[in-house]
């Protein structure tokens, strides 16, 4: 406890040397308000002198005003941070608390117990080394105890404290304690085979077995809670010892330095170690471990470093640098467990973004094979996953990734799912194993129709019909737009007079009849591309309203976007990039739109682009904004 250390007053320098080298333990507390969870945390903070006088004064005032402990301090008020929580007397979100003893610094994730806040509990559990499960000695193991045990072990915690609280209310009865412990062991066998469980009888309110063992439970021979927390080993002991580091950032200050920055996920690394960059599998040797404090002779799991390699191999963000002796597997299809964390249920077959380490890919999540009832741990049939549901399913990615099974390495086997439209984090997943052959996947019956094809590309198909005089800038703007679409990862194709007339329409001339046939064919091609889910850019003079209407009628509602590149004749003629106007004026070219053939300007185009006062890039941006606003570009 910090105030108990005389060194603070007598020799601060010595105290600080001693305390600079503490270890750090992160733990989570699970339970509801009734179990005394908040009381326990308040007690830990209070006993380790982490509550200051001004905080204590406001706590005492609040306790009298809204507390549930009569004249006593209501520690729950200390930890319920949000106004809504204090008013409703419930805990909604994870609160992080900090305290330190002479041995350790602690970070406590105080998590809500109610089922509807499971995702908040998952947030807290995902970074914890130990879980404290609060149990009311009068009630024993409840459904929620089972749920909390399941969620915490699912997120990878293997050390559990069974905190049998409120022992004061059952006269510190050993038999009651033992019965509860036996109940829990029977149940815990189904959770995982490698759990380390420490049952402790306690009274958080009375301070029994919190900081030291108390006389009230003379029959109990185990550690007090604080003794346990100060001595339990830190870290995930199942973590693979093989070196892995996801590349977060490629460090290139100049042409002579190329480093790969990241946080080491597991194992250790030294200069001279043989490594591979995954998924490419290219091999090299560690040259240096660079940090701002100088090069290191060795780096270990948890450190954020920058590695340089002896060979110029191409690794980029999202790749993993791993030991060549035991590289990760690489696959694009997996069996996974998923915890769904969004109000909108999982849509099987839909494409979600999947982020694992520093890598983000697109994933199709198939319908669950089965769900898991978190209260009974039994398998239940499931067609989808709803908020807080857990299921086993398969996923397939748009590209292969480096991974370890989650149970071997939570840093390389855990991922989040992101909805591409709302950008919400909708689920978390754990990789169990790769499906070696595509035929192993049980694909859900799903017709590969135009919607599926578009969904796969993360966009809505559209036909962008650029119409305007020769030389108005149609192709230039379409080109600028297509570059932007490409950069955004959208799938598009450009049809223009020049590329179509040389092939498909080379039998057509420039008579009115041929112009109509030209447009009919181009519209049909655009329609097919639209069915394939593409954003198609059609740049044709297309001077007649009737033909543009025909093209519009062929497309699905809302997919035809008429863009009038409204450049006045005199401006287009002045530009005359291809020298066509000159030839038309001299009579060398017949039926030239605007000179010897009419142009019927659109009456209600979706977009009208003035090119006199703006650049093609500005025009492309305007069209891009339109597409974005109308949902053509997905998330």
């Amino acid at each position: 406890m910090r105030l108990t250390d005389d060194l603070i007053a007598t020799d601060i320098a010595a105290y600080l040397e001693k305390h600079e080298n503490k270890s750090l333990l992160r733990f989570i507390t699970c339970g509801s308000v009734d179990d005394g969870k908040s009381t326990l945390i308040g007690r830990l903070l209070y006993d380790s002198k982490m509550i200051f006088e001004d905080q204590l004064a406001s706590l005492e005032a609040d306790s009298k005003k809204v507390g549930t402990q009569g004249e006593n301090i209501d520690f729950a008020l200390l930890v319920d941070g949000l106004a809504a929580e204090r008013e409703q007397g419930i805990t909604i979100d994870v609160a992080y608390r900090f305290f330190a003893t002479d041995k350790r610094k602690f970070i406590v994730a105080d998590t809500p117990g109610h089922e509807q806040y499971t995702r908040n509990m998952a947030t807290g559990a995902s970074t914890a080394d130990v879980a404290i499960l609060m149990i009311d000695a009068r009630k024993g193991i409840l459904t929620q105890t089972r749920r909390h045990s399941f969620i915490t072990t699912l997120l990878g915690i293997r050390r559990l404290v069974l905190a049998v609280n409120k022992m004061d209310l059952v006269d510190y009865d050993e038999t009651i304690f033992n019965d509860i412990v036996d109940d829990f062991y029977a149940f815990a066998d189904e959770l995982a085979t490698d759990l380390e469980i420490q049952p402790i009888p306690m009274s958080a309110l009375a301070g029994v077995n919190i900081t030291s063992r108390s006389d009230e439970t003379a029959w109990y021979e185990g550690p007090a809670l604080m003794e346990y927390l100060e001595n339990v080993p830190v870290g995930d002991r199942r973590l693979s010892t093989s070196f892995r580091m996801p590349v977060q950032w490629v460090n290139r200050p100049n042409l002579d330095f190329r480093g790969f920055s990241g946080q080491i996920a597991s194992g250790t690394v030294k200069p001279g170690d043989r490594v591979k960059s995954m998924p490419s599998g290219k091999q090299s040797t560690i040259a240096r471990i660079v940090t701002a404090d100088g090069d290191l002779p060795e780096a270990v799991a948890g450190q954020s470093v920058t590695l340089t390699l002896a060979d110029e191999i191409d690794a980029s963000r999202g790749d993993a640098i791993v030991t060549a002796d035991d590289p990760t597997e690489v696959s694009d299809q997996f069996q996974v467990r998923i915890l769904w964390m969004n109000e909108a249920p999982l849509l099987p077959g839909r494409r979600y973004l999947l982020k694992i380490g520093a890598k983000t890919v697109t994933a199709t999540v198939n319908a669950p094979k089965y769900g898991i009832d978190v209260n009974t741990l039994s398998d239940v049939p499931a067609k989808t996953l709803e908020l807080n549901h857990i299921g086993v399913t398969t996923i397939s990615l748009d590209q292969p990734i480096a991974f370890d099974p989650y149970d071997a390495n939570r840093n390389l086997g855990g991922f989040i799912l992101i909805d591409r439209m709302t950008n919400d984090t909708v689920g978390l997943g754990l990789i169990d194993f790769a499906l070696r052959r595509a035929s192993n996947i049980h694909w859900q019956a799903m017709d590969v129709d135009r919607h599926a094809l578009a969904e796969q590309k993360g966009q809505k198909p559209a036909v962008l019909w650029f119409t305007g005089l020769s030389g108005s800038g149609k192709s230039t703007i379409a080109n600028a737009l297509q570059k932007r679409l490409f950069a955004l990862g959208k799938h598009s194709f450009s049809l223009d007079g020049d590329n179509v007339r040389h092939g498909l329409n080379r039998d057509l001339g420039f008579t009115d009849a041929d112009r109509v046939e030209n447009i009919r064919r181009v519209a049909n091609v655009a329609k097919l591309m639209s069915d394939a889910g593409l954003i198609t850019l059609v740049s044709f003079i297309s001077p007649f309203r009737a033909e543009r209407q025909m093209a519009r009628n062929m497309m699905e509602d809302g997919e035809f976007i008429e863009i009038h590149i409204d450049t006045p004749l005199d401006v287009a003629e002045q530009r005359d990039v291809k020298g066509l106007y000159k030839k038309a004026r001299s009579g060398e070219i017949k039926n030239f739109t605007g000179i010897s053939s009419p142009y019927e300007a659109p009456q209600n185009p979706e977009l009208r682009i003035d090119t006199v006062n703006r650049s093609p890039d500005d025009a492309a941006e305007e069209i891009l904004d339109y597409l974005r606003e109308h949902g053509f570009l997905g998330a």
Partner: protein
Amino acid sequence: MPQLTHLDRLEAESLHIIREVAAECENPVMLYSVGKDSAVMLHLAMKAFYPSRPPFPLMHVDTTWKFREMIEFRDRKAAEMGMDLLVHINEDGVREGIGPFTHGSAVHTDVMKTQGLKQALDKYKFTAAFGGARRDEEKSRAKERIFSFRSAEHRWDPKRQRPEIWNVYNTRINQGESIRVFPLSNWTELDIWQYIRREGIEIVPLYFAAERPVVNWNGVDIMVDDDRMPEELAKTAVMKSVRFRTLGCYPLTGAVESTAATLDEIIQEMLLTTTSERQGRVIDVDQSASMEKKKQEGYF
């Protein structure tokens, strides 16, 4: 095999967070308030990208009432580190003559700080802004994610926080939204001091005790830093050995009487003290949930 200490683990986590923002966010900025937490955050940013420079600028929202020593320190530090520094002042507030003595702490802070910050973020269209807030500072901060999302109006919705699993951060935002990122979330005040000591990080001298002219205003000792203090009040100034536990606008920052003139003495004093850090800030005492309310309104 080297064992990581708690400071090593905190540092590594912060470096990971800072790099993740640089790698994924379109237009990030680091809010630099010139205080000790900002000093640590800047130090971590320099480390995260070494030997490169951090690929984002620093920004200071200057309320025009900061201690003069802070401004000097800010400009010198940014130059030394080779960082681009953007300084934003709410000119509307300046035109209206807003100040803590004339308008009180609430109006001054809202106009010059909260509105000023929103203006600056809108002006430069930053999609992510690093802040030096810590979870141990205040109850609503204890519940905030490391990546905390703000609507186009800069509002925080505590009921719609995204789950934050492992160290896999979802940095995606919708049009107009932005992220506040807190790389020091898991640091405590003591961690900050210990780290400053371990790394030899330079901080503004105001943190160290010295003889300074102070007056008592609304029950708090504040320093006479310039001639904008009302004459009646300035007349009452006495010299005292004081230091500051947090730094902000000089009329809103309470001095504590102290003789702690070295880092070790400051830490010693802090460990033996019995009041929490934010007590010196006039801004928080209004009501217990005031920070939560301010955050919802866009105060970082």
